[in-house]
């Protein structure tokens, strides 16, 4: 009975993947023929989208001159991309930012995050556990426990890996959106009656902190926090 259920579930998953692959190939064909709207709809129907689907969706938006939406899709692609895939995505992002006259400052912490995001979370967890066990073993059983420098290095390495693990966890749960509508106002609270703090230009990337039905709490790159209407974002 269990085998039957497993086989059925595997079949469902496989058929879903195959359907998504078919949609992806169809969307590619639309794109090549210049039917960008159909291509966009097809890419959007794939769930959950991988790096190529997000990237091509961004391209479709771009070809339809919907630059903020294209930026949003490419940022999503970037979160799924491996390091050697990111060059093409960053290239497109730069072009769209140029079109929108938006400049995103990439700080050193962003670069670190970019690298850390490519590391497998499970792999990192196992690595932390393994190193922790090695450290404890050396500390308790080995004659090396008398070598303070080795233990110091291992201690620092443990702390560093744990920090990377926490950073990776944070990256996993970070959510970003892009302002796609003009006149997007950042307000003090989740209602139009609240005082506006600043206007955020189209194409600007913001981090989502909290979500309600029609309002989203966001923080901008300069550190300002506030609420913005859901319809302004993608």
């Amino acid at each position, binding site marked *: 009975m269990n085998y039957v259920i497993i086989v059925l579930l595997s079949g469902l998953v496989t058929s879903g*993947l195959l359907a*998504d*692959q078919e949609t*992806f190939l169809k969307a*590619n064909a639309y*794109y*090549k023929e210049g039917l960008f709207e159909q291509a966009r709809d097809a890419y959007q129907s*794939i769930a*959950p*989208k*991988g*790096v*190529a*689907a997000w*990237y*091509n969706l961004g*391209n479709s938006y*771009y*070809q339809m001159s919907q630059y903020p939406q294209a930026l949003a899709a490419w940022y999503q692609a970037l979160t*799924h991309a491996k390091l050697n*895939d990111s*060059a*093409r*995505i960053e*290239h*497109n992002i*730069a*072009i769209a930012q140029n079109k929108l006259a938006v400049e995103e400052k990439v700080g050193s912490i962003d670069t670190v995050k970019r690298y850390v995001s490519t590391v*497998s*979370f*499970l792999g990192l*967890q*196992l690595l*932390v*556990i393994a190193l*922790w*066990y090695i450290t*404890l073993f050396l500390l*308790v059983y080995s004659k090396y426990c008398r070598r303070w420098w080795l233990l110091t290095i291992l201690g620092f390495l443990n702390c560093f890996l744990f920090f990377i693990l926490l950073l990776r966890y944070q990256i*996993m749960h970070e959510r970003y959106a892009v302002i796609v509508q003009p006149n997007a106002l950042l307000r003090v609270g989740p209602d139009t009656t609240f005082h506006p703090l600043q206007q955020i230009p189209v194409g600007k990337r913001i981090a989502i902190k909290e979500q309600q039905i029609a309002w989203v709490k966001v923080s901008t790159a300069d550190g300002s926090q506030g609420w913005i209407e859901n319809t302004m974002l993608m």
Partner: protein
Amino acid sequence: MHMDNQVAMKKIIGKFFVVVLFLSVTVGLYAQYAQLTVTNLDGNPCKQVYVGIPFVVSLYVEGGANDDKQPEILGLQRFNWQFEGTSSTISTVRGFMKVDRTYRYRVRIDKAGDYILGPAHLKTQGDTIESNVVKIHVSAEPPQQAPDALVTCSMSVDKQQVYKGERIQLAVRILCPADAAQVEISRPELPDFLVDNIEGPISNLQHDDETKRYYAWKFTLYAKREGALIVPAVSAVAQVPLAQHNDLFSRFFGAAYEKKIVYSNAVEVDVIPLPAYNSAIDGVGQFAKFLASVNKYTLHVGDAVSLQMQVEGDGNLNEALKTIQLPSGLRSYMSEQSYKPGREDMRIKTQEFIIQPLEPGQFTLPEQKFTYFDTKKHRYKTLRTKPIVLDVIPAPLQQSSVLPVLLDKNRLGPLWENGQWYATPQSCLPWPLFVLFLLAPFGFFALRRAYLRYQGSRRKRYALMRSKLAQAQRDHDVAQLYPLFLMVIAQSMGKQETEITIQDMLCTVQEAGFTQDELKAWQLFVAEIMQAAFGGKITETNDQLFQDADYWLQEFEKKL
């Protein structure tokens, strides 16, 4: 009568003097006069100056107009000169304004000989004022610096005659009191030279008759043109302590220094042209090494390979290794360059080129040539690198399709046709499980510690039993054996000795995994020690009983 004549004569002479005075003042107000003088930089008049050392030519114009007209000094244009400014004195006598003006020029003559400067002409208010003419003798010998001078400055070159483009080391050296401060030099005027490197100041103490401190600067130069080139004198400034203010009190208030300005000699370098050569050359001087290496020999189309070119020599390396010879199908970009000291007085320049193949195939980087003029052997030489073969294999589909497009910064990247269209969920250990894994060793350590403690107490217990057994054996007291084993069984069962029955003693041993024969032996042993304890029977088999007791104690320690 005689007296009257004398009085009349006095009056006539007096009036005559008054008229002369009046006329001289009136004429003086309208008189115009110009004088050309030559002074050294300290302001002292001089008739002899030195090659390459600047001096001052002043034109004093008395009664010149207060306007901005510049005088023309005949012969000045032949020399290296610089207008330094004017100073004016304005005075008013009897309502007339008179302007006296001095024009100052800093002049340098780079060739020895006798020269005539002037006259100077200044046009003012319709008139032309003409000055005198001065004769200047320019000495080729450097000025003698006073032997007792506190600060001296000298300049020298390592070679008096060089080829065009050959390296020249120019050294400027200041010798001053050991406690002099703020020692600096003016930057030498070197329009005919390419200045490559400036080192210094290097400072150290020099112990001769008295301890002095020297400061040295070293300039690496390359002559840009042929001929007798002059490096003019540089000025040096130093704050020298005053002898009379050298006490602690004066030093405390910081008023113990005097500013000294001195000038070095000038140096002349004879630059001779290079012999004719039918193509461009890469350097002049001594060159020892010219190498080329790559970081890999096999690469994909679009990948980059780093070509390191290295040359070692004492010539001008700044202009070396600017280009490389490449076959078609490869393109290159100039990347980083670095310099480091080489053997003897040479430097090593390393220039990196990034080479990118545009198509697959086997490419041979041809030998690179470095042609230079050997200044010691006075002939042209060529250094060559070895050819390098690169195997370029086709790029993976993903990279080759995207790379050419990415090079175009304004074009959107192409469709990603064979990428991952579905998202794979991130697998991870749940946090509680992860934390459990981290804390598991501590649980293990706690259990181990408890076990060791238990083991320790058990060992102690049996050690105590053995000592009691030994004591009983020494006392020949077999009656002690029964309570001893009762205690062993009670402790292994976790009960009090009073709670233990004979049945417990037999069952405990049975459950511990002893064989039937051993059980029978144990029953027999128990019967004997009970009899010994309660029956008071002491037999000759007591030694055997003690041996049995020792055996059972060992067995219980192992199995119970």
